[in-house]
């Protein structure tokens, strides 16, 4: 019998034991969801099943030795699983538990087992009760009851109410919509303007040419400059912050040489 091949059928997992271990170590299954007691039960049931089906004496003894090994392996794996799970569940308690003496630890464990045992029996009682009461039929629905008790209103301040009313009575400020009707020339217009300017001159200063335009128009003009810069038609320079912006035509010699070379 091999522990790794133990077939499990748990609430959170169905398959061989070694796959469960792999998934837990890869953190693809939350160990908190895994019912370790269920694994132990499955293992014991499998062992008992094998013992019952064992036929010849000798074969049985061999099987027994094999099972002893399997039991050892299983104990190691399950205790590791349990420790992992305990650490997950009792994150902040872990150091305290580690400091406990064996007797105290046993008492703590007993306390928890007892607690769970009682709840388990209580759930069995509930289950049988549910079975007894299965033929109870009653009306279900929201209770059409008047809410009980009146809610006292918090003490109110007349001045605060007056202030709030005054605010409501004041006509609201007119919101300026000026920005919505903002008009400015299209970018292309400036692009063409700069191109023709640079056709006549090899360089110019931004402020000299456009100083008399509005702020918005200047902004559009500057965008047009950036566009020309991006296209590689001009070079933009500035000696220092806030110094005049100098715009220069880029010599096209290089590219024309290249074009000539190709067409040749």
């Amino acid at each position: 019998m091999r522990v790794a091949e133990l077939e499990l059928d748990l609430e959170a997992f169905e398959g061989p034991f070694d796959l469960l271990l792999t998934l837990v170590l890869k953190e693809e299954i939350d160990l908190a969801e895994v019912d370790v007691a269920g694994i132990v039960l499955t293992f014991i049931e499998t062992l008992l099943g094998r013992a019952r089906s064992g036929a010849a004496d000798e074969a049985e003894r061999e099987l027994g030795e094999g099972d002893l090994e399997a039991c050892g392996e299983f104990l190691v794996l399950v205790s590791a699983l349990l420790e992992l799970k305990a650490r997950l569940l009792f994150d902040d308690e872990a150091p305290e538990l580690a400091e406990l003496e064996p007797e105290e630890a046993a008492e703590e464990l007993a306390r928890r087992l007892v607690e769970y045992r009682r709840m388990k029996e209580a759930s069995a009682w509930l289950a049988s009760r549910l079975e007894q009461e299965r033929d109870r039929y009653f009306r279900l629905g929201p209770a059409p009851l008047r809410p009980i008790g009146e809610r006292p209103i918090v003490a109110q301040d007349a001045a605060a109410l007056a202030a709030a009313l005054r605010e409501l009575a004041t006509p609201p400020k007119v919101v300026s919509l000026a920005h919505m009707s903002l008009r400015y020339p299209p970018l292309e217009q400036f692009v063409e303007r700069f191109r023709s300017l640079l056709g006549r001159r090899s360089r110019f200063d931004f402020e000299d040419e456009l100083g008399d335009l509005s702020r918005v128009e200047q902004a559009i003009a500057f965008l047009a400059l950036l566009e020309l810069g991006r296209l590689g038609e001009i070079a933009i320079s500035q000696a220092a912050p806030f110094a005049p912006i100098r715009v220069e035509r880029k010599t096209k010699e290089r590219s024309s040489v290249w074009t000539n070379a190709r067409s040749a």
Partner: protein
Amino acid sequence: MDERPLRLITNSPLDLLARTVEALLVVASAPLAVDELAEAADDDAGRIDAALRLLAERYSEGRSGIVLEQVAGGYALRASREAAPACARLFERPAQRSLSQAALETLAIVAYLGPCSRPEITRIRGVAAEATVANLLERGLIAEAGRDDGPGGAIRYRVTPLFERVFGIANLAELPRLDDLGGDVEQIRERLHAVAEQRGA
């Protein structure tokens, strides 16, 4: 023509009160406590009790299709058990009636220890309780009841009147005493201490 009322024949003051209580119980879809009945009927609790006794006699198993029962901290009418098969044909099986083992354990913990939080349930059961708690909330068997003290206060839960109704218990005191549960508890404790002594030695 017989002009007498169907169920309550006399016109004594108590009978009149019993008729009022009867009407209130028919209208309500949740159990009504004696205090609530007294307030609605504008009468005192002692007389309400007497009226309820009168009604309980009339609305009892074998005598009527409707049965008056003391449940979930109050009084409510339900169908008689005789009528259960007919009711079953009319209604779908209520969702509250089929509960998994995990749901029952969680319900037991909340019933006994509530209000209690999900971390507490997880600690006792040793399995994450998220899905089970959500399931019980959806079925209306538990409800939120404040938050834990301290930082990050987890939501606490308690069982609802519907829980008591589904399980047919008048109040939580009807649950078996916790001390009477877990019979082999001492054995476990002894065994664990024996192991501890061996390790400690």
